[in-house]
């Protein structure tokens, strides 16, 4: 039932209504709205009941295990939420004077410093509002760098074929041509392909390390040398930073620019698909181009850095300073973890991934890169199973829902057929991993013994499999009364 179906003309939620009548009005008649608004007329209780019930139809970290590869679905500490929502923080206007926000600015400044330290970068701007915007800003800085040097021939960005789709999409948004390079059978970037692709036209290379294949690019230092020697810059996609937090600094691997998905590594909530936050960090040579605002600390006072302080900045990429409330949550999280906690994140994320990989392998699942260590994630391929039974990765994913587990990431990275990208994250216990393995084993048996049942999963969810094709063909994007 939609909220609109709880609506009745003339129903009023009076406690939200003014107790006085607005008496003044001075707007030309032709500018006044005459048409109705299709908003529900419902009682407060009906609204509360409707959305409380709706919420119960969601899987979430607070209710289920979510082994979604590349998404780092870890526990979102409740303290981060509570403290970011202290009334004074919520009430503060973004344009309020700096001296009325020293508490808030102190948190932002310290977060900048901490992120510089863990990434090994010279500067950080907290502005980007999501991973994809972090990428956009990162590549914009690469472009600004080349342009500032009058180096206008650099028109290409190199991207491995295993990369997130955002990498090529971002490069194009920045006006670059995308050159994809292949992956070798061990899951590393093909070095010959890289060498062949690099040249004076190369603006930069975008790399995720550990890669989306769940393995560490061992040749990263050599890659860095090759690209830098050709005059290009190195972009670090921080999607998998959780795997190496405190272990390796992207700056030490030779990267010039990085974005950090706070909603992954720093455990800010995914919120059903946002808001995220993705600060960018840069090496020395890109410092002049960082987006404003940033926070400075001078003589005990925190203040915004603006275009006046950073004259070569690529500018502003949000109306204010990005997703401040998300940044506050990340700040609380890093302070809770502290310096030792940084390391533990990657250690236990890696332990969980390698353990689950070992257990699933023993259970009979095919691991995509069996000779490699898993990073914080790894890939299972159902290529063989599909050939023999017709059961796809998506079928298995849907069957997992029936068993109370969110599905792993399916069909990404696209170069591994029928793949499941599995990332347990460090906050899950051995018992949960064991129970998940048991469920996977059950499905393996079901695939043999009840093939059609598995193919038509899910069966125990509020709805059965939904018709995506019809959704795209017969577009129904808004409710009509």
């Amino acid at each position, binding site marked *: 039932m939609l909220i609109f179906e709880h609506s009745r003309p003339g129903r009023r939620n009076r406690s939200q209504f003014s107790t006085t009548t607005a008496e003044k009005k001075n707007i030309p008649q032709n500018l006044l709205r005459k048409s109705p608004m299709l908003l529900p007329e419902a009682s407060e209780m009906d609204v509360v009941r409707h959305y409380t019930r709706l919420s119960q139809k969601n899987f979430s970290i*607070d209710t289920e295990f979510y082994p979604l590869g590349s998404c780092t679905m870890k526990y979102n500490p409740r303290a981060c939420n509570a403290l970011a929502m202290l009334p004074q923080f919520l009430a503060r206007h973004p344009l*309020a004077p700096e001296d009325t926000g020293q508490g808030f600015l102190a948190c932002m400044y310290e977060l900048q410093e901490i992120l510089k330290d863990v990434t090994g970068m010279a500067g950080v701007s907290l502005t980007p509002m999501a991973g994809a915007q972090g990428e*956009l800003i990162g590549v914009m800085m690469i472009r600004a760098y080349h342009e500032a040097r009058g180096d206008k021939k650099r028109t290409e960005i190199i991207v491995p074929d295993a990369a997130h789709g955002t990498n090529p999409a971002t490069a194009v948004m920045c006006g670059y041509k995308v050159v994809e390079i292949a992956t070798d059978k061990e899951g590393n970037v093909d070095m010959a392909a890289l060498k062949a692709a690099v040249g004076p036209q190369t603006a930069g290379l975008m790399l995720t390390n550990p890669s989306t294949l769940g393995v560490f690019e061992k040749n990263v230092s050599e890659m860095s040398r090759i690209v830098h020697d050709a005059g290009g810059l190195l972009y670090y996609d921080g999607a998998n930073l959780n795997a190496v937090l405190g272990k390796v600094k992207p700056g030490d691997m030779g990267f010039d620019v990085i974005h950090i998905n706070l909603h992954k590594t720093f455990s800010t909530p995914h919120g059903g698909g946002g*808001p995220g936050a993705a600060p960018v960090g840069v090496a020395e040579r890109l410092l002049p181009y960082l987006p404003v605002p940033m926070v400075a600390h001078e003589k005990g006072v925190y203040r915004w850095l603006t275009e006046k302080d950073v004259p070569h900045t690529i500018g502003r990429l949000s109306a204010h300073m990005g997703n401040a409330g998300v940044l506050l949550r990340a700040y*609380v999280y890093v302070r809770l973890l502290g310096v030792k906690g940084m390391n533990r994140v990657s250690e236990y994320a890696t332990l969980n991934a390698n353990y689950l990989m070992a257990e699933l392998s023993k259970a009979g699942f095919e691991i995509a890169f069996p000779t490699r260590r898993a990073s914080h994630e790894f890939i299972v391929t159902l290529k063989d199973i599909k050939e023999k039974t017709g059961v796809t990765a998506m079928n298995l994913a849907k069957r997992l829902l029936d068993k109370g587990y969110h599905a792993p990431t399916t069909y990404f990275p696209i170069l591994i057929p029928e793949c499941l990208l599995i990332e347990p994250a460090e906050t899950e*216990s051995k018992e949960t991993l064991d129970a998940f393995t048991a469920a996977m084993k059950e499905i393996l048996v079901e695939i043999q013994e009840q093939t059609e049942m598995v193919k038509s999963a899910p069966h125990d969810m509020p709805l059965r499999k939904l018709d995506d094709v019809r959704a795209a063909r017969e577009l129904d994007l808004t409710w009509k009364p």
Partner: protein
Amino acid sequence: MPFIPHTEEDVKEMLASIGASSIEELFDEIPSDLKTGALTRVPPGMSEMEISRLMLERAQADGFYLSFIGAGAYEHHIPAAVWQITTRGEFYSSYTPYQAEASQGTLQLLYEYQTMMASLTGMDVSNASLYDGATALAEAALMAVRQHKTSRRILVPRTVHPVYRKVLSAIVRNQDIEVVEIPFCPESGQVLLEHLEPFGQEDFAALVIPQPNFFGVLEQVDAMTDWAHAKHSSVIAAVNPMSLAMLVPPGEWGAQGADIAVGEGQPLGIPLSSGGPYFGFMTCKHDLVRQMPGRIIGRTVDLDNKPGFVLTLQAREQHIRRSKATSNICTNQGLMVTAATIYMSLLGPEGLRQVAAQSHANMLQLAEQLEQLPGVKRVYSGPCFHEVALTLPGPVNEILQALKEQGILGGLNLQEHYPELENALLVCTTETKTADDLNKYSEMLGKILKKYG
């Protein structure tokens, strides 16, 4: 170990299964010269008790003020139910609803949101939100350019929020899109046809029309829309959604209506929070839907023909189309939209109308009171929604400082963005301001201005 459940025994058993002798061994593929030394600027961990106290002290230090600042972010009352429901774990800690069967809560809510926003703006379809108002405007510009085959010019009046214009320029710059600034009438504070004409000689992809504009002034949207359409260009409406409870929605501007409407969703139940997270909304005419960036939810049926909801039109998105995607965006601001949808449901059409009407009436009342102070006058003659630009008889920053000492944040110094506007202040009132608040402001300002009399 905060948030890590492993016991020593767990670790032993897990390593045994893996066949490794230590956790460190699991990192053996990382070249040792890359291993990080000590982190020097990350402080030791704090307990929840300790960080709670620190944050409480910082929040207390920041305090509360009686604020009359608007300029794109507005203080409205947010019903208590909104965030108590929004922060339920099932909304707060869920992922993007790719697995539709396990995400019907979020998906249905987003479908309801799309319906509300399309209706509020008078358009056909809506996406599930973008980052914020400023980036939504930039995405609309890119969309208009994709649609318009021949021109990469976008006309943007100077009455559009100055930071939105900066963001727009920063984003479209690298795609060889030209942003052309349109002047405005210094008397009325509006863009008049005479300001547009000189820029209509050449082809352009779209005209951006703010409503209300940055000065709070209402633009002559019908004439502007018809003018742009006559030039075979798109119209991008940049609107405050709260104002649409009172004002003609973009879909009804001029003869054909605007083509795309965007704006900042913050007024719909999102706290000010020093600037974010907010959300950008975008709605458009049906024929533009495949050009629209961001997530879109569609209603369909399951195998038993029961209605349900899915992400749809994913063929536009980067995870499918990669370098050919409509945008690189891969998130929306889901949690903010959750709050906004609950907010709009709790207020309903009449509630929203009341908020808008009271905000507007308060602005008129305050302006009237302040104009009685010597040397204070309205900068522009155009009608306003809930913000008004005023000229003061002295330097704005000095006066704002004096007001702040009385616990009042008096508004925004317009000269920061418009060098020609000396001693001009942008003042906002929403429904949260009482008659006492308005009196307090005018009395305090009166006292302060004596100095400049």
